[in-house]
């Protein structure tokens, strides 16, 4: 794959494994084994079976007729919100728990922002009967309270990350610290295409089922497996990478990644990494991150907990730098309005993360014959409080 990872763990200038020695044995074990395990027939059969019969895949590709009329193109929703647990995060969680089992791990840790990845991880740990500890920023625990309760009900321990900005990056720090202290029996299920190599590639492969299905579904529905546009929101970037994966080498397909502008890209309260960031090292990989001139990580802001991250995965940094994908940004207000519009025109309440991708439609012009796919990465149940407060329902 032209845009895939090379044998040294890099995507162009980005990637690698910038980890303390304490994490080396764990990450090296993964590096040596992940491709063999993922390509093993027994693994594939178990993964596919769980995706089909437990997650409910394939997720529908829905031709959104009223949206198509409004935006003057054929708009398709890839319905990851209909997955078990309500978002795309379950795809990766299933893949990694099966991998962890084959590596003989007895304990799972995870970080979570919006709680979607934490819920997905707690779910697969319950399914496999494995101990689960989820780290979540204190602020995120407050704004995504229903997901905290869901994780607890599923038997996971939720530990608050109370350092720094008390959001996703700090939860990731705490999970890494836990892993340093538990180097033998614990597997860390990273929820996005971030972290040291091989995580970005591993998570992208597990999420690539999204674009694999989309191609088949487009062929059935339109007679052509390639659309003109593919859109997805980007925090760390896992749903976007899954949505882009099998289209990367089809250079005519325009890929659009939507970041969270928060209160505006230049407001000082934003998470629009490609607009505000520089190259550096965050959470184990060389990538683009928001930072001060002294190299301190800037605390990001977005109303959406899942996009509130100061970096992007290294493959996204590469796609941005070589212009394979276009990176745009959407404000809190634009996203919430788009969430309302989608609810009232298509009967689908999207996660606020997803609403960022939907809002991007307002800024684009299409030809009537264009086929446009948007990844509906998650459902909005967890965000009802935020929507209710914003719209005064």
């Amino acid at each position: 794959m032209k845009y895939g990872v090379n044998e040294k763990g890099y995507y162009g200038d980005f990637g690698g494994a910038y980890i303390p020695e304490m994490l080396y044995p764990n990450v090296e074990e993964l590096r040596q084994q992940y491709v063999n395990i993922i390509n093993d027939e027994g693994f594939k059969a178990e993964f596919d079976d769980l995706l089909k019969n437990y997650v409910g895949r394939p997720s529908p590709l829905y031709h959104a007729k009223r949206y198509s009329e409004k935006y003057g193109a054929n708009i398709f929703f890839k319905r990851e919100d209909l997955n078990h647990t309500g978002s795309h995060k379950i795809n990766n969680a299933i893949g990694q728990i099966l991998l962890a089992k084959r590596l003989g791990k007895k304990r799972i840790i995870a970080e979570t922002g919006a709680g979607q990845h934490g819920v997905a991880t707690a779910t697969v740990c319950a399914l496999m009967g494995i101990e689960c500890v989820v780290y979540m920023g204190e602020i995120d625990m407050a704004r995504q309270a229903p997901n905290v309760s869901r994780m607890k009900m599923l038997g996971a321990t939720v530990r608050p990350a109370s350092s720094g900005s008390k959001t996703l990056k700090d939860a990731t720090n705490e999970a890494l610290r836990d892993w340093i202290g538990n180097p033998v029996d614990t597997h860390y299920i990273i929820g996005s295409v971030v972290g040291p190599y091989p995580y970005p590639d591993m998570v992208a492969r597990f999420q690539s089922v999204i674009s694999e299905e989309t191609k088949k579904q487009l062929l059935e529905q339109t007679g052509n497996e390639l659309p003109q546009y593919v859109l997805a929101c980007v925090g760390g970037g896992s749903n976007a990478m899954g949505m882009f994966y099998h289209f990367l080498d089809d250079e005519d397909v325009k890929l659009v990644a939507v970041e969270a502008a928060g209160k505006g890209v230049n407001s000082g309260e934003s998470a629009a990494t490609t607009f505000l960031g520089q190259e550096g090292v965050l959470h184990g990989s060389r990538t683009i991150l928001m930072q001060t001139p002294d190299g301190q990580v800037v605390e990001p802001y977005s109303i959406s907990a899942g996009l509130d991250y100061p970096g992007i995965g290294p493959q996204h940094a590469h796609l941005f730098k070589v212009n394979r994908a276009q990176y745009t940004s959407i404000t809190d207000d634009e996203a919430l309005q788009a969430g309302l519009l989608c609810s009232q025109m298509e009967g689908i309440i999207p996660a606020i993360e997803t609403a960022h991708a939907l809002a991007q439609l307002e800024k684009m012009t299409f030809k009537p014959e264009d086929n446009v796919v948007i990844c509906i990465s998650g459902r909005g149940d967890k965000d009802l409080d935020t929507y209710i407060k914003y719209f005064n329902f």
Partner: protein
Amino acid sequence: MNRLNTLFNTKKDNLLSIYYTAGYPALNTTVDIAEALEKAGADFLEVGFPYSDPVADGPTIQHSSEQALENGMTLNQLFEELKELRKRVSIPILLMGYFNPIVQYGVERFCKRAVELGVDGVIVPDLPMYEYEARYANYFIDNDLSNIFLVTPQTSEERIRKIDELSNSFIYLLSSSSITGGSLELTNSIEDYYKRIKAMELSNPTIIGFGISDHKTFEQACAYANGAIVGSKFVKLLAEDDYMGKIPAFIQSVKG
């Protein structure tokens, strides 16, 4: 040959190194603390430059880093303070911190500036051997700035041999796989690990760190290595009133 090599050539046992975070508890204290530590009998020092996301550190050093950043500590500020260093301090000095601030400063520029100011080596926990060797080693070698690698109980013998080859002053042995600031019980498995390393007869001296906090743990470490590093325990002292006056007694209590 830099000051570290000179030190290790002349003193082989019971070397005591102290870690502290620059900018904590206040700006413009880095050289004062270094001078006091040298007078009190520390053999070499590790000066931490703070980072917003110190994943290898426990609560004590996390807190000192946060406070130092709030005080306005940056690499530029630290280098400004270190202009006084070699007028007042003669023991070896290492800088310790995470890689991203160095990337922003410019790796080559960082190495040059550090050596100009009299810094002898660096410890960058999140710059592992492979990435160092593939992309950055020349900047360190050309400037005669030692890069110190960490070894944990889980590090394989093959990898330790490779680290020994790439090192040119000392190897930092972690007492266990943990973040900083933990307490150390000398269990059989840790003792076996120390013995295993000692039996490898590495060409570089070894210094043990993480979990060394008092005379007992210092002595235990020195039985298997050339010396040991005290970090979090000293950083806690810096939070106390009149910490400068308490430095001699602290060093004495560790050395015994």
